[in-house]
């Protein structure tokens, strides 16, 4: 072979071999790094949150922890506190459940009274008792995330606990 061509092949091999020997270990690392992408939150089934008796039909929101099975990487907890909800029962018996997480930036909203509704302690978003945006210019792009509820056996309140992406104007399941 002529020297110029041999030189080119040499360089091409050197670059290829170098790249391959560097990329294989890096690729293995990258695979592990990207693993969380396939662990999106499986849709949580309905969870029993409380008994109907703890929820007088007066429309006042009451806060309950959501206790469910949770797998966190290598540990599984059968009764983990995975979050909390506000539940309210209206005089006509309708149930409403809201995720306590502010749809703006993920803080825990607090109930601040029948007139004031819910208030986020972080960036001052506020919501009416029905979960709708209350303050004009609210940093939150949408109202509180309402969750599906069910009454089972006429005595227990079950909630489909879900999280939604913050910062969007529609509810996109996380």
């Amino acid at each position, binding site marked *: 072979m002529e020297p110029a061509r041999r030189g080119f092949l040499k360089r091409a091999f050197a670059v290829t071999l170098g790249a391959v020997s560097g990329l294989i270990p890096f690729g293995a690392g990258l695979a592990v790094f990207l693993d*969380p992408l396939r662990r999106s939150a499986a849709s949580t089934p309905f969870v029993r949150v409380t008994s109907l008796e703890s929820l007088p039909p007066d429309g006042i929101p009451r806060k309950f922890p959501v206790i469910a099975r949770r797998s966190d990487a290598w540990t599984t907890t059968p009764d983990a506190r995975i979050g909390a909800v506000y539940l309210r029962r209206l005089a006509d018996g309708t149930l409403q459940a809201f995720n306590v997480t502010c749809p703006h930036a993920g803080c825990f909203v607090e109930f601040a009274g029948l007139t004031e509704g819910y208030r986020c302690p972080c960036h001052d978003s506020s919501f009416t008792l029905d979960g709708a945006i209350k303050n004009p210019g609210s940093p939150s792009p949408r109202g509180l995330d309402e969750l599906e509820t069910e009454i089972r056996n006429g005595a227990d309140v079950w909630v489909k606990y879900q999280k939604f992406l913050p910062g969007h104007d529609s509810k*996109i399941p996380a």
Partner: protein
Amino acid sequence: MKRWIDWLDQRTGIRKLAEEALFEKVPGGARWRYVWGSTLTFTLFIQLVTGVFLWMAYAPSAHTAWESVYFIQHQMWGGWLLRGIHHFTAHAMIVLLVLHLMQVVIDGAYKAPREVNFWFGLALLLLVLALSLTGYLLPWDQKGYWATQVATSIVAITPGIGPELQQLIVGGADYGHHTLTRFLALHAGVLPGAILVLLWAHICLFRRHGLTAKEPRRKPDTTFWPDQVLKDAVACLAVLATVLFFTLRHQGADLGAPAEPAEPYSAARPDWYFMFLFEFLKFFPGNTEIWGAIIIPTLILLLVAAMPFLGNWKLGHRFNLGLLFALIIGAASLTWLSYAKDAANEHFQHAARAAEREAERVMELASSPSGIPVSGARTLLRQDPLTQGPKLFAGHCASCHRYDGHDGMGGFHASAYIVQSGDTLAAIARGHFMTETALRQLNDLAAGEPDTGRPLLVHTPQSASDLKGFASREWIAGLLDPRHVASTNYFGATAFADGKMVKFVTEKIPADTPAERQQLESLIAAVSAEAALPLQSDMDARDAQIITRGREVIRDEIACIDCHQFREPDDLASAPDLTGYGSRDWLTAFIMNPAHPRFYGDRNDRMPEFGESEILTPEEVGLLADWLRGDWYRPLEP
């Protein structure tokens, strides 16, 4: 000595290296304004040293992070000092970075040919901010947990890749073990590594271009060693003294209660150097968040990065100075605004105090002889009657009962009242034992009467006993006092207001003569002793004779056993069992099912069967009973 150095120099060229490092020219003489770069290198060195030692004691997982940080702070030799230095040096770095940036811009040190070094500097600034952000979460306390939620939520609104990016940073769909392992890898590996590489490049370029001397040059040129080094050393010492001052004042760094996703944390705030961004976000309604969180900060950063080019323009340097000061004043004002708002915000202050109490309590429990269980320190608070009792009481009992006049948490139980036509605020307030002012405040009402049909929050009237000190001698004495037995604090607001017990107490319990009073006192001591309250154990042991006498009174003299069962099976008993009255067993069984024949049977008045109806779990009932009995861990007095 010289021989050794010659030997080494021949093989490494160390003399030339040392000379280059030490005898760098300082045109115009050593000056204080040149110290900032050196102080920053010094603080980075502090962080590397203290950080590595902290790393040796830190365990990143949701069950061990807080626990290991607690152990460093409270149990290990010098742990608080190490944490404090690391924490406050991080704050010092932010201040020094701003000062360094100011010096560079004011002195025009960003201009050609130093553009690339200016960008390296900006990149270093961002990396240090990233270190602060990642470090804030590592203790896994409520403060770091909730404040970091805001940061990772912002990541999620990045166009296109936001949700995936957030998931990669968080290490899954929710915060957990992998959030900590990732944040630690960033905080202790990736970011410091990148900083070291960039800093090396930053210093190399600095040496290549030489120092930008401040004109006019006041003194003859000198060398870095020893003139400037002396000034740098003094400055570093001052930085260290400041850091130590804050470390000693705070006895290390704060550690809140362990992260708990089901507990609100209304005191969530970032550290002071991010407060301006936090406040800035409040100005962006709804869908414009991305402007405040990502677009505007990025544009500002790009504008700052463009300073070297802007500086070529005739008025460019002045523009850059104006830009820098506008940014600093803007950030300072936002920071001030944020703190001023919080200082005036009652809810925030209340939440901050509650957070402090919870943190203190968990420290007490963690330092108790039983220590921290494998499941982590979260369990300590979840299983602590003092922490959970008031919350459970407020949620489940306070709609009827009171605890020392309040709902257990120091508040009141609220219910809704719909305004009827013809109602006046005064009448509504009276009807709910409130003042008109309190009613107005509670409902944010302006002057005038409320509209018909509007729901108002009102205090729920007490309709069952006040349980503060339940089964203690004082409480029983009130129950057996004809003046109090029919008050709302006992049976007054219940179906038993005209019951046999009230009648019996008002008519049959004599306490006129000293002998009768003594008889009553021994009866009270005996009933109360059934509870075996931990706070009365000394008293009960001391009064053993009186208690024995009291038992005779119960059986034979006052004849409580006509209705109550006492220490012997009694199928005909119609009133609650006095055997073990107020003991943990008795109280948990009672709360589980007050309508059990052993207690009120079918005469039970409205009290839910908390256990039978699965309103509360047996663990929750136990916590409630322990709290009412004052049975929780108390550290020994020092």
